[in-house]
């Protein structure tokens, strides 16, 4: 058995940032399904928000304005005390990343450059060209290397071990050998990212299967607000690779088949820089009403920005457009469509990243504190990872420092044995169902029935079909091949997670009979604060999710109508 005081699951920006602080207090290890540098943080492009007031156009900006914009963007579902933590600590966390070497783009006077992003009253998004996530990820990884934190690369965590309401450790599969191993820990931080791969149309990496959410759910921690799934307006057609909001922040237009800047009709003031939920719905409406191109996409036009600006501010998306769509945005229109992008919901925790299990913490996209509510503003997710990654690391490190090992290793051995049996069963499967067929059916179903426009009938149908997929999941044919780097096994384990989470998303969406932020019910088109100004909590039972609610913390901004 391997022991560490603190084990951080996930090596993206939240996990790395947690490790930096946790390792100040306690022996810390990171365990990740991929090498940390392969994490999805690296795909983040546009930037990270903080009211630094570095340029003339944002001299009057401050953390309170950032708070208000975030809460309004969230359609008033975010917990306002938690948002304040994020916006107040934001500048310090970003300056710290700069001090660790992050190569931010610069203003003429040498400060961190900032650009406009959707739903923000000021240009507040600090950026490093259009590869901000990659540079932040590399910077944080360097600092983890410097601190000599142990990293278990390519280990797939299969289960958490909790004794009542206390965390004990976890079980993980070493992908390179195929062996299962038990890890004993005084504290565990979940930082595994989002669950985007549940949708057939997603900008996410293929590893974003919601692992940490499912791990927590299975030890009876609630998943909060899972019905809130962000659809990014500008995913490249047809691969769904992300084209940053920064393209619009720098002045890009959205145009339909008639060459019209259609955002005029939907958000006359903010235009292309309305929040993502509004822009995505507008694009989908244009396509649905016959003003798309080939009934599938609209165009993002950055040609008027000119060659120089595209090369200096948007080089990454130019490469992507050329490599994956064969077009150069300097003189061509970019075909784009909305696609799943971010999971606002996640592991239920408070603004100290604590879950209801002592010693178990969550941070970043897999967590739901909630700072994003019903719709996240662009540039707030990288911020979430560094602010709450640090808090989670600090909390976990201090908790581990002040607690001692107790002699309950039996429970760990039992958990290991149970998982061994489970994997043995997969290797001995005698059914005829193919997990990749089930997975693609699930992913298509989620786009068909639980995408941007939802209704009760379709959601009910989706629940029935998901139940059926779960039944078929119990009749898999046997896992093939060697124990070493067995993709069939890993992808089957991921399917088990994703099916569980799909059910939570759909059940939560069915239960919320209103439209708020990213969650639109055509049968309940209005926001209903009287009934639904509250968080959804989904608990795992043998018959599927049990839905409860919890209060939204409102400190100073009462809900109002959202206009842009």
């Amino acid at each position, binding site marked *: 058995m391997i022991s560490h005081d603190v084990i951080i699951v996930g090596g993206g920006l939240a996990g790395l940032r947690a490790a930096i602080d946790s390792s100040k207090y306690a022996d810390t290890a990171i365990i990740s399904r991929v090498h940390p540098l*392969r994490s999805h943080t690296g795909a983040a492009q546009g930037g990270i928000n903080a009211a630094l007031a570095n340029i003339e156009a944002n001299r009057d900006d401050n953390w309170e304005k950032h708070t208000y914009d975030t809460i309004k963007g969230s359609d008033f579902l975010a917990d306002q005390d938690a948002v304040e933590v994020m916006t107040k600590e934001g500048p310090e966390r970003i300056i710290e990343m700069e001090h660790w070497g992050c190569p931010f783009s610069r203003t003429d006077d040498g400060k961190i450059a900032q650009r406009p992003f959707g739903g923000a009253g000021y240009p507040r998004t600090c950026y490093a060209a259009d590869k901000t996530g990659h540079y932040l990820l590399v910077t944080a990884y360097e600092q983890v290397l410097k601190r000599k934190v142990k990293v278990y690369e390519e280990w797939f965590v299969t289960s958490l071990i909790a004794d009542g309401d206390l965390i004990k450790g976890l079980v993980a599969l070493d992908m390179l050998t195929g062996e299962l191993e038990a890890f004993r820990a005084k504290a565990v931080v979940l930082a595994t990212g989002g669950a985007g791969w549940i949708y057939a149309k997603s900008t996410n990496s293929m590893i974003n299967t919601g692992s940490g959410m499912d791990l927590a759910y299975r030890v009876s921690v609630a998943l909060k607000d899972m019905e809130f799934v962000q659809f990014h307006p500008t995913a490249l057609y047809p691969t769904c690779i992300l084209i940053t909001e920064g393209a619009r922040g720098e002045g890009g237009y959205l145009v339909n088949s008639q060459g019209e800047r259609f955002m005029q009709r939907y958000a006359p003031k903010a235009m292309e820089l309305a929040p993502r939920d509004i822009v995505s719905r507008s694009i989908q409406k244009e396509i649905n009403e016959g003003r798309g191109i080939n009934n599938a996409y609209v165009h993002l036009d950055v040609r008027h920005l000119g060659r120089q600006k595209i090369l200096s501010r948007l080089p990454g998306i130019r490469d992507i457009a050329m490599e994956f769509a064969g077009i150069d945005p300097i003189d061509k229109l970019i075909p784009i469509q909305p696609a799943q992008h971010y999971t606002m919901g996640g592991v239920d925790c408070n603004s100290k990243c604590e879950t209801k299990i002592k010693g178990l913490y969550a941070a970043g996209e897999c967590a739901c504190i909630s700072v994003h509510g019903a719709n996240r503003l662009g540039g707030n997710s990288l911020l979430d990872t560094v602010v709450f990654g640090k808090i989670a690391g600090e909390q976990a490190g201090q908790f581990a420092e002040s607690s001692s090992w107790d002699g309950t290793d039996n429970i760990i051995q039992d958990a290991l044995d149970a998982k061994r049996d489970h994997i043995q069963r997969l290797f001995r499967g005698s059914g005829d169902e193919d997990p990749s067929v089930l997975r693609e059916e699930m992913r298509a179903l989620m786009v068909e029935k639980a995408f941007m426009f939802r209704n009760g009938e379709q959601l009910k149908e989706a629940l029935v079909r998901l139940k059926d997929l779960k039944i078929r999941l119990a009749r898999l044919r046997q896992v093939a091949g060697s124990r070493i780097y067995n*993709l069939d096994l890993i992808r089957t384990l991921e399917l088990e997670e994703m099916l569980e989470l799909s059910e939570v998303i759909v059940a939560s969406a069915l239960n919320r009979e209103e439209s708020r932020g990213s969650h639109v019910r055509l049968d309940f088109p209005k926001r209903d604060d009287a009934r639904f100004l509250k968080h959804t909590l989904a608990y795992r039972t043998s018959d599927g999710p049990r839905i409860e609610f919890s209060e939204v913390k409102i400190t100073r901004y009462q809900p109002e109508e959202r206009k842009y």
Partner: protein
Amino acid sequence: MKSQAKTVRLSILRFDPKTDSEPHYDIFEVPTKPGMRVLDALFYILENYDRSLAFRYSCRSAVCGSDAMFINGRQRLACNTQISKLGKEITVGPLPHLPVIRDLVVDLHPFFHRMDMVKPYFEAREPFPEKEFIQAPKDREALDVAIDCIDCAACFSACPITWTDPAYPGPAAFVKGYRFIADTRDSDKASRANLLGCEDGVWRCHTIFNCADACPKSINPTYFIQYLKRKTTRLSAKL
């Protein structure tokens, strides 16, 4: 094998160290689609022909560096290499000169271990300023391209000096070294000059440019290595 109007033939190197004494190639006929990439073909094979195939993937958009492989005789990323540009016969193997774990998955520890030789993290003098370090846009521009490295190890696999000298950090490590030496905010120039300019350092580069040919992000490590030869000499002269 399914028959389709348009197909390509992929020969894929297979090796399982537990059961195989030596590697062999398996051949698969894969139907093509417009815009199809090598990674799509690998998934097609995994899901339709042989679910025991092993390869790495993550972002599928050429930013994570997971899927560098040896495709038709050169190092490339599977996710951004178009099938249509490779012809009808495609050969895919693991990155050469790295130990094979299974099939297309290589052990990257040698790559990351040698990266460690150049002190691969930023070091700035404390106390830090209250706000950010001030850096002129032109000074920041000096880091362009070098910071785009995705650690895919394509250059490492392509460099003959790396193959033969285990103390040679390799092209990606030098790009990393450059990134800190050239950064006006980094305060550790002298020790970096020693690490990069030592006997097994930049001077062993034979300017073969294999690394530049191999890089999927259009980085030219040879250029940065030549810069480091000049820079480390000047820095060492000052010591």
